[in-house]
């Protein structure tokens, strides 16, 4: 396996790891987005059943571990690459011009913002569901944890909503560069489809998905009243 070791210690190999985990996380975002729509258009029961399914389905469980692993690998490898790159120019320029997009130059900063957000977000809901005091309701004969009021009540806090919205802005800029960059890094580049990948990255992953995620806390804050927990 010397070849694999050589590959993973090469500058290209390390970027391929960042790219593949990043693109996998993009597919996770799409699935997560679909679930979130339950909060806006669905009912409390539908949302709780969705939560139940997401925590009890075997396939989802495997995918969720893959997702956690991807987040860790993506972050660790990206920071490693970033440190290595910083070492490639020990003395910087006195006068530095710019000729690239802001997001492409600030991927690590944007990534750290998203990582902090993920920790807060997991504490808000995943941690509460697993270890917090969440009531139980019976839906369709199943004992289901009642996460719905936890979500609705969390999004009555303006600073938390603001944090979610700012984080989604960071996600937007991260994906505007990251999505198309990931394809380039794994060598998927051709004038037949690269323009499409770029547009898809900007409009669907950079604009539509972050907007959709940001819309949930905002809509909940404006439209839903807090639910008293007995």
């Amino acid at each position, binding site marked *: 396996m010397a070849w694999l070791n050589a590959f993973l210690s090469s500058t290209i190999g390390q970027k391929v790891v960042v790219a593949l985990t990043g693109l996998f996380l993009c597919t996770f975002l799409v699935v997560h987005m679909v679930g979130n729509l339950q909060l806006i258009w669905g009912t409390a029961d539908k949302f709780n059943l969705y939560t139940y399914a997401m925590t009890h389905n075997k396939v989802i469980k495997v995918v969720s571990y893959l997702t956690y692993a991807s987040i860790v690998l993506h972050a660790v490898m990206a920071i490693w690459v970033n440190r290595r790159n910083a070492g490639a120019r020990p003395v910087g320029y006195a006068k530095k011009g710019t000729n*690239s997009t802001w997001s492409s130059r600030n991927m690590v900063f944007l990534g750290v913002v998203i990582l902090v957000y993920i920790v807060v977000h997991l504490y808000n809901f995943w941690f509460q569901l697993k270890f917090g005091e969440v009531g139980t309701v019976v839906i369709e004969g199943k004992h289901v944890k009642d996460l719905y009021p936890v979500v609705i009540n969390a999004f009555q806090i303006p600073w938390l909503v603001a944090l979610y919205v700012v984080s989604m802005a960071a996600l937007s800029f991260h994906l505007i560069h990251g999505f198309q960059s990931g394809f380039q890094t794994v060598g998927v580049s051709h004038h037949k489809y690269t323009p499409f990948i770029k547009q898809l990255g900007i409009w669907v992953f950079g604009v539509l998905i972050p907007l959709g995620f940001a819309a949930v806390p905002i809509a909940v804050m404006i439209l839903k009243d807090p639910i008293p927990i007995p």
Partner: protein
Amino acid sequence: MDNPYRMKLNLKVWRQHGPQDKGGFQTYALDDVSPDSSFLEMLDLLNEQLVSKREEPVAFDHDCREGICGMCSLYINGHPHGPEQTTTCQLHMRSFSDGETITIEPWRAKAFPIIKDLTVDRSAFERIIQAGGYISVNTGQAVDGNAIPVPKDDAEDAFNAATCIGCGACVAACKNASAMLFVGAKVSHLGLLPQGRPEAAKRAQAMVRQMDAEGFGSCTNTGACSAECPKEIPQSVIGMLNREYLLSTTLSEEG
């Protein structure tokens, strides 16, 4: 009386006696500069004045002065080769304004150590070429140029990549001091042609290995290199390099 067709300039130039010297900026005032002179001719003028004052002239790289050799470098006002997308020898003083302060720095990269003032050692590029930037050809009678058919699109892409003059502006422009545009240009130029295919997998592996050993950074696809490349080498050569490296790692005996 001031001549309206002549420029006055303030030059902020990086001076460094040798590789071990700490170095620092020196400011020089220069007047009577023709807007039609090239940037290098302007530096010649500065050096003539320095020599006449018995001061050490500024060391800078230059050779053909017609935009084809890739020897001239200089990071001018925050951009490799200055504000125009060309080589420094083809940059003219009309691109600057009268009375402007121009900051002139050497290429900055761990793999391009400073020799003196504005000259850097770019032999890291030579070693990358020696690692795999060639095709093996038997000696003897020259092969008929048209014996192997080459699709026109491939020939054109290969030629575009081959216009790379190895100046190092891509490294200088990249925030990671990455040489991926240079290596990508060489791998594309040779790999797109049938004569280059037999050694393509070996080439991609060897050139990337040498590029990493020299201490260049990795490509984060900012596109700054192509934006500064005097030969306008596109980002697609980096896509091809990534593809060649990935495929040679997974599908060939190399790596």
